[in-house]
Every structure is written in C-alpha cells, then in structure tokens.
C-alpha cells in the first residue's frame, strides 16, 4: 500500500516538473531580442463595443498595427467610463499604459500633478505641423501650469436636435428662447410625447449653458467656475430655468436613471420630439429620424446674450511619463498619438461615427458622401459663430473632486433637494470642500 502510494506521488511530482519545465521552455523559446526588436506600446482606450466612435476607431488601430510591424501594439479596451477606473488602478500600481485616451484636466489633473503624464510641449515645438492641425483653444483643457499634456481627440458640441415635422404638427415653431420652449411644452406633450429628451447630465449641461449666457463673458465665466463668486443672481436664474422646465414636464420621467445613449433612443423611437446632448452621441442617431431632424441652437435664456453654444475639447490622448523617459518608446508613442489624433483617423471618425474632431473640417480629406447631413449642419453652425459666441462647459475648469461635487449638486437641484437660490452658495461649498 505504501509502496504504491509512494510511487504514485513520485509520478505525479515528475509530471508536474515536466509540465513546468515545458512551460518554461515555451516561454523562452522566443528568439533573442535583436536591435530591431519591436518596441512594445500599451494603448488604453474606451472607444469599444457599442460606443459610436468604436466603429471607426477600432479598425483604425488595427490598420496602424498592421502598418507598423516595428511596434508591438498591445491594446487595452474597456467600454466608456470603465476605462477611467482601470487606468486609475494601473496608475496606483505604477503600471500605467504608455498611451491612453482620457478626459481633460478635470479628470486627469491628479495624474498630471503626480508627474505621471508627459508634458508634450517640447514634442509639439519640434513638430509644429502637428500643433497647427488644431485650433489652439482646443488644447486648453489639457493644459496645466504652463504645460500641455494631451492632443485633442475630439470636440464636443452640445446640440439641440428637434423633429421639425412633429413640432409643426403640434403647431409649434422652432424654439429660440427658453420662453418659446416653455410655451411649446404643453402642445408637444399633448400627444403623450416627451418634449425634450434630456437626462440628468444634459440638464446639467443646459444649466451650465444658461449660466454662461447670463454671465456673458468668457473670462468672467472662468473666474466664476474657479471661485463661485460674484454671480449669485445669474446662477439662481439659470437654476430656476431648469426647474421651470422640469415642472412644466419638458423632461422625461425618470431622467435621473436615464443614461446617455438610451436618452437618444427615446428620440430615435419618436417618443421624444427633441434632444439635447453632447455631440459624441450623434453616431447613434437613426437614419430615419435624421431625415426629419433639424439642428438648432439651444433655446437661449437670454436672447440678447452673445453666448450661443457650448463647445470645446475635453478628450485627449496622453503619453505616460514612463514612456516619455524611454527614448525608443517616446518616438513610437508619439508616432501613435499623432496618428490617432491626426487627420486620417479624424476623417474616419467623422465619416463612420459622426464624431466631430478637433481638427477643422476643411482640413480633413473627407469623402463628402459618407458624412451625415446632421453632423455637417452642426459643424457648419458652430463654425459660423464667433469666438465670443462659443463657450466651453465651465466644469472643464474644475478639479476632479470639484467636478464630482458639482455633479452631485446638480442632481440635488434637479430632484428638488436644493432651491434655486441656494445653488450659488452650495457651489462655493463644493469648491471649498474640494480644495
């Protein structure tokens, strides 16, 4: 009995050893690295799966990998917001990717301040052609303390889309002011439709637009964003406007748990007659509805205000400091970054995913037939506006903690926990907590 047992154990042990040895042999069976060994670059991004940009972006990356055998491209994908958390964990462990897509300073300042993201100023100086692709203002959300840390990957335009036919059926013309919209709500809602499909995020965007319109000055807006001082009455008025809209029944029920793309689906399905959101969702607008859709400026709270539209750049491609410090990696990473942020991919994003890029349309080599009329109308509308008429979302200027506080404050306003008059002070409290 014991002899049988002993030999059985021996056999098992020998098998394990053999297995381990062969595994080890396999892993070292690769050829010895030569001078031309491929540089490994880890790229992390969230434009995958059902996100509209994925249709253009994923093939673009594959094409790059195929064209560049000298770069061993390792791609890490996690749909949408999940990539943010993944990068956070990797940063915490010191295992951050070499190149990654991420939001602007209001979500990445912690990484930049910890010295984990490379300052691209020198690279941009050495490659002025790259810098010239973009409107200088589009770098602002990736700039901190004099350094520039990212290349703009996209532009956000907050758009107001409405179904022209349905509006005229209800006897309502295009709403140009807030009052127009409020007046139109009963008629639009009469058939059981939702007048304006705006989830809680979009309602916050509208609030920020209204604050910007009432303050009516870009510099002052930025100062307000950073201090919360001096514009209490404007803030109260903007907050009240959103509450009025809500109480009139303009927004969908359950907007608090309605996420972004599903809110577009309400519009696609004809259940909502207009839609306010960030332009990255355009790729999911259904073609049938697109034919009936008119792109307009958001109904203004103050018709005399210069400010007409919210637009800016808040999504960038970054390089990690680790990659920057390694000369071979730096060059490969820069090459990849300039490809991803560059005109070729931008054109694809526009054609396939209807995603406006930070590179002006006329500088792209576009196949006009591929582009939807809605995105063309939207970009043309924006391009016709002067610099005073466009503002970024003021939350772009905030730190991550303050941004989270603002989002929470907006939610509380929208579910009635905070009164319109108290918002300004609550905002100052948010800023105080965050510092």
């Amino acid at each position, binding site marked *: 009995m014991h002899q049988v047992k002993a030999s059985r154990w021996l056999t098992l042990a020998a098998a394990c050893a053999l297995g381990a040895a062969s595994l080890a042999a396999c892993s070292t069976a690769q050829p010895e690295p030569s001078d031309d060994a491929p540089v490994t670059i*880890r790229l*992390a991004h969230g434009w*995958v*799966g*059902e*996100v509209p940009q994925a249709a253009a972006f994923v093939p673009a990356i594959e094409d790059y990998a195929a064209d560049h055998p000298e770069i061993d491209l*390792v*791609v*890490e*994908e*996690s*749909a*949408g*917001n*999940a990539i943010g*958390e*993944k990068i956070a*964990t*990797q940063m*915490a*462990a010191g*295992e951050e990717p070499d190149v990654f897509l991420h939001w602007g300073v209001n979500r990445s300042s912690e990484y930049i301040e910890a010295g984990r993201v490379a300052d691209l100023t020198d690279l941009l100086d050495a490659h002025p052609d790259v810098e010239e692709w973009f409107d200088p203002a589009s770098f602002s959300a990736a700039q901190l303390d004099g350094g520039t840390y990212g290349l703009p990957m996209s532009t956000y335009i907050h758009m107001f889309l409405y179904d022209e036919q349905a509006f005229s059926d209800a006897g309502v013309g295009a709403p140009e002011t807030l009052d127009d919209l409020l007046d139109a709500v009963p008629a639009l809602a009469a058939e059981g439709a939702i007048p304006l499909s705006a989830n809680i995020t979009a309602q916050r965007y509208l609030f920020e637009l209204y604050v910007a319109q009432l303050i009516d000055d870009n510099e002052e807006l930025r100062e307000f964003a950073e201090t919360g001082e001096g514009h209490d009455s404007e803030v109260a008025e903007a907050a009240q406007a959103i509450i009025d809209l809500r109480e009139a029944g303009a927004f969908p029920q359950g907007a608090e748990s309605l*996420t*972004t*793309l*599903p809110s*577009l*689906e309400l519009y*696609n*399905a004809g*259940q909502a007659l207009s839609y306010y959101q960030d332009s990255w969702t355009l790729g*999911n607008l259904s073609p049938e509805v697109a034919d009936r859709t008119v792109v307009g400026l958001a109904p203004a709270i103050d018709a005399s205000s210069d400010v007409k539209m919210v637009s800016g750049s808040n999504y960038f491609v970054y390089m990690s400091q680790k990659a920057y410090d390694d000369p071979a990696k730096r060059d490969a990473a820069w090459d990849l970054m300039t490809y991803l942020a560059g005109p070729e991919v931008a054109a694809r994003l526009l054609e396939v995913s209807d995603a406006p890029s930070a590179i002006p349309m006329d500088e792209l080599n576009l196949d006009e037939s591929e582009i939807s009329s809605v995105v063309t109308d939207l970009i043309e509308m924006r391009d016709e506006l002067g610099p005073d008429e466009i503002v970024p979302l003021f939350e772009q200027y905030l730190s991550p903690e303050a941004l989270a506080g603002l989002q929470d404050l907006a939610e509380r306003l929208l579910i009635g926990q905070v009164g319109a008059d108290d918002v300004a002070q609550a905002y100052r409290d948010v800023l105080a907590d965050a510092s």
Partner: protein
Amino acid sequence: MRAIGTGVRAVFTWGMAFFVLALLAWVGFTAMKSNSEIFASPFGLPESWSLDNFTQAWEVGGLGSAFVNSGIVALLSVALGLGLASCVAYAVSCIPFRGSSALLLVFAFGLGVPLQSLIVPTFLKMTDLGIRDSIWSLILVYAVFSLPKAVFLLAAFMREVSGEIVEAATVDGAGHFRIFGRVVLPLVRPALATVGIIDFIGAWNEYVYASVLVSNPGARTLPLGLANFQSEYASSYGLVAAGIVLSIVPVIVVYIAFQRNVVEGLSSGALKG
C-alpha cells in the same frame, strides 16, 4: 383541508417559478427584436424570429474565447478553492485543538470584507508575481477569495455530521486523513456540491477583478464581453438581451448536467442516522 394546502403550495411554488421563467422568456423575445419594436410592443412576440442580435452580440462581445476562458478560470479556481476549503473545514470541525475556534474566526472574518476594497493591493501582488495579465491571476484570486464563504459553509455542514460516525471510525483505528477522505467528505457531498456551485457561479460572473487584472483580449472572461453592453452605452436593448441569453444558456446547461450528480449524492442514503 389538505387539498387547500396543496393548492396554496402549488400556487406559491409555481408563482415564484413564473417570475423567473417569464422574465427569461421576455429576455429571449426581446433579443429577437429591434429597438423600435421593443418600444412599440415590449410584451408581444417578436415579429421575426431573427437571430441577428445574437450573432452581433457574439462578435461585439468577443464571446467565443470569453466562454472558454471563463470556463477554465471557473473550473480551476473552484477545484483549488474547494480543495483548500474542505481541508480547513474538516480540521476546524473534526480535529479538536485549542485554536480551532480562532482559526474558523480568521476565515469567517473574511466574510465581512468588501472585496472591492482590495483591488489595488491585489493588483500589486499579482504584478509582483508576474502573472497579472493572465487567467492565472484570476484563478488564484477567485480561489483565495472564495475561502471565507467556503470554509464557513463547509464547516457548518461538517459539524452536523454525526459524531458517532467519527467515533466509530476512530475506534477502527483510522487516522484523520482517512476519516476526512473516506468518511466525512462523502457524507457532506451535497454541501460540497452546493459550495462548488456557488464558487463556480461566483468565478463565472465576477466582473470587477476580471476587468482590472486582465487587459489582453486573449485572456478575457465572459463578464467583460458582456460589459461592452453596460448601461451608459447600452442603447440597443435587443443586443443587450441577446448578450444576456448567450451568457446564461450554457451555464444553465452545465448546471442541469451537474445537478444530477448532486441528486445522486443526496439519495445515496449515507445521511441516514
């Protein structure tokens, strides 16, 4: 009287079953509809029994290799976890020694730990071991994290095993190893199967650690594939429903097949007395 009792019982049990089956059927139907159809008639049968959503979900989610990976990870982590846990559970409930109470407490303490708070330390450890971006890290993590619950449950069941049987075995001169393997383990087979199933499901469906530890698509598990349809970006409900169906059906099949073994073990009669 008895007829009413049976009637109530039937209504209750089949009513509960209805909640499960109806929802599943609804998911199945929804998977065959387009978005506009879903909004228009959420309850109706699909117009065309189209499998388009299923194929698209399969491709978008990369579900083919994800299934294989999930299977390997779940099976190996359950084998390891269950093996370790049953050893400890036996030691704690059937070997009298002074620290047994404390040892059980050490493992049971793990029940109160929110696993999501251990992400960063685990990430660091796996990176140090060099296995982070592979299924081995998941196997190890799932096996170890399953220990608190498994030890706790198995110890509870082993304790119920009649002391007389253990007594009789020891009188026969059996050492602990033999009592463990030949006497106690067969007696707690339903518990082992139960805990095994629980661990398997846990490993199969685990999402957070899989998404954090594993990056390369070759090692991706099923929940990651499904996560491509996750809320913020899930706008095609038919696709989502198809993804759900594809992720459930094989597990149900495996469970039904495995369940028969549990039934056999239960009716083996070893539990009498």
